[in-house]
C-alpha cells in the first residue's frame, strides 16, 4: 500500500469467481462463460478484445450493474474485497467503484459542471462543507479551473469526459471502471485522459479500462487481458504485447500499441500498392482532376468566423482525410459542404451538386422499415434494380428486407452510405466513421470507403484516427481556426502525419 493513504481505506481486490452471465433467460447463450479473474488493489488493467466479446459485460460485473440492474441470468460471484456485489445496493457500490462510460453526451444529470462534479457526493449524503472541499480539490487536481461553472451542453466531448472523470473522482472510490472512455475523443483529449488514469494509479487506485485503443495506456497499464468469447484468452504486459509486433496485435483485432509503429505499417501498405501499381499510379494521374469549391464561409458573429475558406480543392475519386483539433471547424465545413448551414445562396448552390454527409451517429439518418426502402427513399425516380445493385456493392443484399435499425453498427453505416450513393451525389463526407471501432471493423470501413472511391465518388473523411488514415486515405487536409492550414498527399508524408497527430499526446505523457 502506498504511503500517505488514510488507514481506514480498504484494500479492495476484485474477484470474479466462476462467473457466467447471459442477457437472456438461460445460460445456454451466455456472454460470459465461467470467468475467473482477480484484479489486485492498485493495479491498472486493460480489458481488450473485439466487439461483442463480452468485455463491457465484465465491466458491468465489476461496477455492480450486473447483477443489480441489468436483467439476465447469472451464476457465480463477484467480490469486492470480501463483499459480494449481489448483497450490496448500487448506492453502496458507488462508494467503492466509480464508473465512466463511452458516450460523453448521455452521462450527465446536471446542467452546470460544478453540480455535476458534486453529484456523486451529494447522492452519498456527505456533508455539504466536505463536498465543497472535495469539488475544489478535484478541480485543482484535474486542472479544469477553466471549466468550472460552465454549462455542460456547451463543452466539447473531451471536456465532458474530463468532467465525468472529475465527478467520479470526487467521491474518492477505490476502483475506477472506464468503459471505452476514448471512443468519442480526439487524440489530444485521449492524452488528457491518459494523464488522469496515471494520476489515479499513482494514488494507489485500481483502474479497469475496457478499450480497443491501447496506445495511450501503454506506459500506465500493468497488464492487458485479452477477452475472447467471454473468457480471458491471453494476458500480457504492454511491453510484451508491443514486442510481439503490430501484426500480431492487428491479427487479434486490437489497435496499435504504439503510434510510432504506425510509420512502418503505412510504409508497408503503400509499398504493397506500389507493387500492384494501382493506387500510387492513379494518385499521380488524377491529381489533375480536382473538384474546387469557392467561398466557404460560416460565422455566427462576423468578427469571429468559424469557417473561412476561399477555395477548397478535393482530388476527384480519392479519399481525403480532414484532420485538426476540436473546434477547428471541421464539422462546420462538412455541414456547409452538405448545405446544412450557411447562407441560403450557398445552400442553393449545394442542392445541385453538394455532398452527402454520413453522420457520426448514423441512427439519425435511417428512416424507413427496410434496407431496400432506405436506399429507394432518396432515389429520384425510384428504381428497385439499381437499388439492389447498390446493396450488392455494399454486401448488404442479404439484409435487404431487414429493419435498418436492427442491424449492427457497421451495417447501419453501410446502409447510410447506400442511401448517399442512391441520392446521386458525387461527394460523400464522413464524420468520424471509425470512432470506437476495433481493428477488424476499422479495416472493413476502410475497405468500403476504398470501394466507394474506386466507383468514382470523392470522399472527405473527418477523423482523429491515424491508423485509419494510413490505411485508406490518399490526401490530407489539416484545418486550424476555420482555415486550411495545409494540404498534402499522404504518399511520402506518413512520418509527418503521424508526427503531427501525435506530438501533443507524447508531450503530455512525457
Amino acid at each position: 500500500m502506498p504511503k500517505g493513504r488514510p488507514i481506514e481505506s480498504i484494500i479492495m481486490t476484485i474477484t470474479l469467481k466462476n462467473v457466467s452471465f447471459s442477457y437472456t433467460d438461460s445460460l445456454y447463450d451466455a456472454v460470459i462463460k465461467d470467468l475467473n479473474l482477480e484484479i489486485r488493489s492498485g493495479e491498472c488493467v486493460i480489458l481488450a478484445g473485439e466487439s461483442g466479446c463480452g468485455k463491457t459485460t465484465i465491466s458491468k460485473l465489476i461496477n455492480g450493474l450486473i447483477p443489480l440492474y441489468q436483467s439476465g441470468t447469472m451464476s457465480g460471484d463477484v467480490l469486492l474485497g470480501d463483499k459480494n456485489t449481489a448483497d450490496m445496493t448500487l448506492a453502496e457500490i458507488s462508494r467503492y467503484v466509480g464508473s465512466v462510460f463511452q458516450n460523453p453526451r448521455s452521462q450527465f444529470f446536471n446542467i452546470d459542471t460544478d453540480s455535476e462534479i458534486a453529484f456523486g457526493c451529494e447522492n452519498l449524503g456527505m456533508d455539504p462543507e466536505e463536498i465543497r472541499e472535495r469539488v475544489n480539490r478535484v478541480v485543482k487536481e484535474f486542472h479544469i479551473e477553466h471549466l468550472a461553472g460552465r454549462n455542460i451542453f456547451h463543452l466539447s466531448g473531451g471536456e465532458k469526459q474530463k468532467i465525468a472523470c472529475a465527478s467520479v473522482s470526487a467521491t474518492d472510490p477505490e476502483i475506477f471502471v472506464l468503459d471505452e472512455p476514448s471512443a468519442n475523443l480526439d487524440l489530444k483529449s485521449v492524452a488528457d485522459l491518459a494523464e488522469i488514469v496515471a494520476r489515479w494509479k499513482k494514488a494507489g487506485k485500481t483502474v479497469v479500462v475496457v478499450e480497443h485503443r491501447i496506445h495511450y495506456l501503454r506506459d500506465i497499464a500493468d497488464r492487458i487481458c485479452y477477452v475472447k468469447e467471454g473468457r480471458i484468452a491471453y494476458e500480457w504486459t504492454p511491453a510484451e504485447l508491443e514486442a510481439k509486433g503490430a501484426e500480431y496485435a492487428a491479427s487479434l483485432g486490437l489497435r496499435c500499441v504504439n503510434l510510432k509503429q504506425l510509420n512502418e505499417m503505412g510504409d508497408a501498405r503503400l509499398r504493397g500498392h506500389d507493387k500492384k501499381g494501382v493506387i500510387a499510379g492513379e494518385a499521380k494521374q488524377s491529381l489533375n482532376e480536382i473538384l474546387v469549391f469557392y467561398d466557404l464561409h460560416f460565422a455566427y458573429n462576423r468578427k469571429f468566423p468559424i469557417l473561412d475558406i476561399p477555395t477548397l480543392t478535393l482530388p476527384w475519386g480519392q479519399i481525403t482525410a480532414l484532420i485538426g483539433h476540436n473546434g477547428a471547424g471541421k464539422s462546420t465545413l462538412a455541414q456547409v459542404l452538405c448545405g446544412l448551414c450557411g447562407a441560403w445562396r450557398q445552400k442553393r448552390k449545394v442542392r445541385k451538386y453538394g455532398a452527402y454527409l454520413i453522420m457520426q451517429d448514423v441512427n439519425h439518418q435511417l428512416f424507413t422499415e427496410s434496407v431496400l426502402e432506405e436506399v429507394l427513399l432518396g432515389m429520384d425516380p425510384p428504381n428497385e434494380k439499381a437499388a439492389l445493385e447498390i446493396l450488392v456493392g455494399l454486401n448488404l443484399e442479404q439484409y435487404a428486407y431487414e429493419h435498418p435499425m436492427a442491424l449492427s453498427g457497421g451495417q447501419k453505416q453501410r446502409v447510410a452510405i447506400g442511401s448517399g450513393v442512391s441520392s446521386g451525389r458525387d461527394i460523400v463526407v464522413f464524420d468520424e466513421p471509425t470512432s470506437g471501432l476495433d481493428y477488424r471493423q476499422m479495416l472493413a470501413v476502410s475497405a468500403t470507403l476504398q470501394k466507394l472511391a474506386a466507383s468514382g465518388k470523392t470522399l472527405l473523411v473527418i477523423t482523429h484516427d491515424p491508423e485509419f488514415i494510413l490505411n485508406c486515405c490518399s490526401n490530407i487536409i489539416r484545418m486550424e481556426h476555420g482555415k486550411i492550414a495545409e494540404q498534402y498527399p499522404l504518399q511520402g508524408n506518413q512520418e509527418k502525419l503521424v508526427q503531427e497527430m501525435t506530438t501533443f499526446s507524447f508531450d503530455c505523457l512525457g
Partner: protein
Amino acid sequence: MKLDPRTKLLLTLVANGMIFTAPLAYSILMVLATSILLIFEGKWRFVCAFFFVYLGAGVFFDAVKSLDIGTSGTIIVASLFLIYRIMPGCVVLYYVMTTTKVNEFMAGMSRMHVPNKVTIPLIVMIRFFPTLFDEARDIGHAMQMRGIRLFSLRTLTNPFSILEYRLVPLLVSLTKIADELSIAVVTRGLSPETRRTCIATIGFRVQDVIVFVYCLAVVALLCGITPFSVILEDGP
C-alpha cells in the same frame, strides 16, 4: 443577488397564473419585479430588448384597435395578442431557468418535502430539452439531405409518413439515451430511497422576504382587498 428556489417558484406561479386570469396591469407589475431581479443578475441587455419589443407591440395594438381591418385581420391580431399576453410569463420563466441550478432546485424541492420520485423525473425533463433539440436538429439535417420535405409529392400522398420519418429515429435515439443516462445515474449512487445532501446553500434571506411580500401583495390586489384595485383595472 440569489433567491431561494422556493421564492422563484412562487414568483413564476404568481406571474404565470395571472396571464389569462388577471388584467394586463398585474402581469406588468410582475414583469417589473422580475426585470429588477434580472438587472441584478447583469442581464440588462435582455431587459432592454424585452421592453423595447413589448412596448412597441403595445403601441401597435393600440393603433390597430381603432382601425377596421376585417375579420381575417382581427383573427391574426387576436392571435398575436395571445403571444403578447404570454410574453410577461416568458420573462419570468427566462429568469428562473437561467439562474437556477439543478441541485438548488432539487434541494428546494426536498425542503418542501416533495419525494425524490417526483424530483428525479422533473430534473431529467428539464435537463433533456437541449438534448431533444440537438437530436431533432440532426434528424432534420438528415431529412434535408434526403430531400424529405414537409410539402412534397411524397408527403402529400401519405401525410403520416412525415410523422414517421421524424418520430422513429428520434424515439430510437431517445430510448438509447434514456438507457445510458439511467445506467450512468445509478452507478453514481442516485436512488429514490436515500436522502441526498446538496452543496448549494438555500434558505430565506432578506431579498426572498421582499419578493415574497411583493408577490402576495400583488395577489391581494388582484383579489380586490385594497381600494387601489379600481384604479388598476382602469389602467390598460
